[in-house]
C-alpha cells in the first residue's frame, strides 16, 4: 500500500466532509500526506486532482463568498460523488448484474464488474429469480472499445492505424464522436482531422490499439453534423429498377418495392447509395436479376462481367 493512495483517500474524505471550500493552505496543513516545500506540495496536489478526476471524482473550485475576492477553495459535492442511479430495486440490480456479465474480455468486463460493485454497495439484494428468463450470450467486443469510450467521454484526440480500401495500413487522427453497434459490427463516427470531414470507421478494421492524446476536452462535438450523418455515410440515394426472378433474391426484394411484371419476373424498385455495393449484391444474385435502370449501372455490370470472362477463358 503506497502513501499515495492513502493521501488520495484522505483528500477525498476531507473534501467530501467539508461544508465549505477548503483553501490549498488548509488542505496542505490538515490533510495527511502532503510534504515538501510549497512548490512540491502544489505539484502533488495538481497530480492528485487529475488522479481523482480519472476516477470520475470531480473537485469543485469555488470561493467562500462571491462578494469578496477570497482565495478560491476546493470541495467535492456529495451529490456529484454519489451513485447517479435512483429508484434501484432488486430487479434492476439483477438486470444490471446480468448485463455486466456479458463481457468476455478483460477491459469492459473489469469496468462492468467495478460498476456492479458500486451498485451492490447500495445494499439491495439482487432478485435473480425475476430475470431468470433472460438469456445472455457472452459478447466479445473489439479490444479498442474501452479506450474509445474513454476518449469519447473525455473528448481526447486519438490516433490509430486503419485498413484502407486497398488493405494498406493508414494512420488516422480523429476527434471521436460516437460509438455505435449495428448488425454485429462496431462503428466509430469521428471527425477526421486530416480529411476535415466526418467519417465512419469499422472497429474490426482497426489494426492497432488506440492512442489517446492525453489532453481532455480538446474538441467540441458538432452535434448537428453528427445527427445528420448516416452510419454508411456515402452519398445521395440513386434509384434502380430491376427485374427479379420470382421466388429468388430475397435480399433484394426485401429492400425494394415489388410489383408484378410477368409470369417469370417481378419488377423491383429500390434505392441505393453506393454503386459498388449494389453491384456486388446484384452480381451475387447471379442470373436471377436484370438491371433495367440506371443505364450506368447496367453498363458497369456488363463491362465487369466481360472482364471476368476475359480473365477466365
Amino acid at each position, binding site marked *: 500500500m503506497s502513501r499515495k493512495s492513502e493521501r488520495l483517500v484522505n483528500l477525498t474524505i476531507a473534501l467530501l466532509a467539508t461544508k465549505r471550500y477548503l483553501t490549498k493552505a488548509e488542505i496542505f496543513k490538515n490533510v495527511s500526506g502532503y510534504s515538501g516545500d510549497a512548490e512540491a506540495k502544489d505539484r502533488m496536489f495538481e497530480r492528485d486532482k487529475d488522479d481523482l478526476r480519472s476516477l470520475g471524482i470531480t473537485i469543485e473550485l469555488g470561493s467562500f463568498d462571491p462578494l469578496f475576492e477570497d482565495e478560491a477553495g476546493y470541495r467535492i459535492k456529495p451529490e456529484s460523488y454519489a451513485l447517479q442511479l435512483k429508484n434501484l430495486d432488486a430487479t434492476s440490480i439483477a438486470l444490471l448484474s446480468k448485463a455486466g456479465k456479458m463481457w468476455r474480455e478483460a477491459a469492459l468486463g473489469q469496468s462492468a464488474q467495478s460498476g456492479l460493485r458500486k451498485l451492490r454497495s447500495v445494499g439491495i439484494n439482487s432478485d435473480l429469480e425475476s430475470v431468470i428468463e433472460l438469456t445472455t450470450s457472452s459478447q466479445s467486443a473489439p479490444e479498442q472499445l474501452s479506450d474509445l469510450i474513454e476518449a469519447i*467521454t473525455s473528448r481526447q484526440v486519438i490516433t490509430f492505424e486503419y485498413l484502407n480500401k486497398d*488493405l494498406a495500413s493508414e494512420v488516422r487522427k480523429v476527434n471521436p464522436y460516437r460509438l455505435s453497434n449495428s448488425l454485429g459490427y462496431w462503428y466509430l463516427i469521428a471527425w477526421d482531422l486530416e480529411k476535415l470531414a466526418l467519417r465512419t470507421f469499422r472497429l474490426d478494421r482497426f489494426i492497432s490499439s488506440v492512442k489517446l492524446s492525453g489532453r481532455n476536452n480538446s474538441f467540441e462535438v458538432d*452535434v448537428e453534423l453528427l445527427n445528420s450523418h448516416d452510419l454508411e455515410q456515402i452519398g445521395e440515394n440513386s434509384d434502380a429498377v430491376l427485374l427479379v426472378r420470382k421466388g429468388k433474391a430475397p435480399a433484394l426484394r426485401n429492400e425494394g418495392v415489388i410489383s408484378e411484371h410477368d409470369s417469370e419476373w417481378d419488377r423491383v424498385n429500390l434505392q441505393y447509395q453506393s454503386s459498388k455495393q449494389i453491384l456486388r449484391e446484384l452480381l451475387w444474385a447471379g442470373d436471377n436479376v436484370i438491371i433495367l435502370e440506371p443505364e450506368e449501372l447496367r453498363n458497369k455490370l456488363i463491362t465487369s462481367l466481360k472482364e471476368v470472362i476475359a480473365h477466365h477463358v
Partner: protein
Amino acid sequence: MSNQSAPIQEVSRLLDLVPFLSTHSHISLKELAGEFGISEKAMASELTALSMCGLPGYTPYELIEIYFESGFVTINNHDALDIPRALTQLEVASLLIGLELMRDAAVDGDSALLEKIDSLIVEMKSLTGDAISISDNPMTAFQAVIESAIARRRSLSLEYQSPIRNEISTREVDPLSLRSEKAHIYLVTFCHSAKAIREFRLDRVVEVKEIENSNFTPASVDSQSGDKHSIQLKVTGDRRAIAEALSITEIPANGEVEVEIYSPEWMTKAVLAHAPYMELVENAQLRSEITRSAENILALYPS
C-alpha cells in the same frame, strides 16, 4: 480502467470498500477479496491502509475503524465516505451496452421485464448522452448458438421464414460461416435437404437449435458437394472488401492468395460479386464454371 496505475486502482477499491462494508457487515475476508478481485492477503493490507484514513486530525476519533473478528470484517466511523460512488463513463457504458444487447435478445420476453430494461436503459443513457448507441441487432439472438456450432462443426436445425412463400419451414444445415452484405447478415450453410450450399438471412431465422450429437466435417461437406478446394486467387483491386469476404487478413502486394473453400458454388458467386477484381488461377473446371455463370448473366442483356 485497465490503463490506470496500481495506486489509482487501489484508491478506487478503498473508496468502494467503505459503502460496501457498510451494507455487508460481517462479511468474510475471503468473500470480500473475491468481490474486489484481489487476494485475501492484498485485501487485508488494503483494509489496514483504510484504517489509517479518516478525517483531518487523524486521531482515533477521526480514523475509520476496521474490525477483523475471526476472519469476518466490520467497519465503523466511516460516515464521510459511506456513499456508493458514481459510476464512471466506462462503467455506465459497459453496463448499458450489456443491457441493450440483452434487450435485443429478449424481444419476446415478459413485457413488464422489458419495460423495466427499457427504463433502465433510458436512465443509463441520460448519463452518457448520445456517445454510444446500439441499433437493432438481429445477430444477437442466435449469434452465440450459431458461432459455437460453426466453431464446433455441429449441424443446426433452422426454422426459417420464407419471404416468398410466406411460411415457416424447418431445415437441417451444416453452418459454414456468417456473411454480411449491406445491412443484412447471412448464414452460409450446406443444406441437407437441398444437398447444396444455401444461405439464410439471419433476421428471417425464427429459431435455431443445435442437432444433438451431430458432427460434420469439411470433408463430409465436400464429399456431398464436390472436391476439397484449395484455391489460388489473384486479387487486382477492392482488396479490403475481398479480404473480408474471404475472411483473410492479408493480401500480398502481387495479389496472389491461396484460400481453402468449402463450396465451389460459393467461390463462383464470390468471384462474380467482386468482378472484375478477383481472378481464379489454375483450376480449369471452376474457371469454366465462372465463365459460364458470367455468360448466363450477360445473356440477360442482349445487345
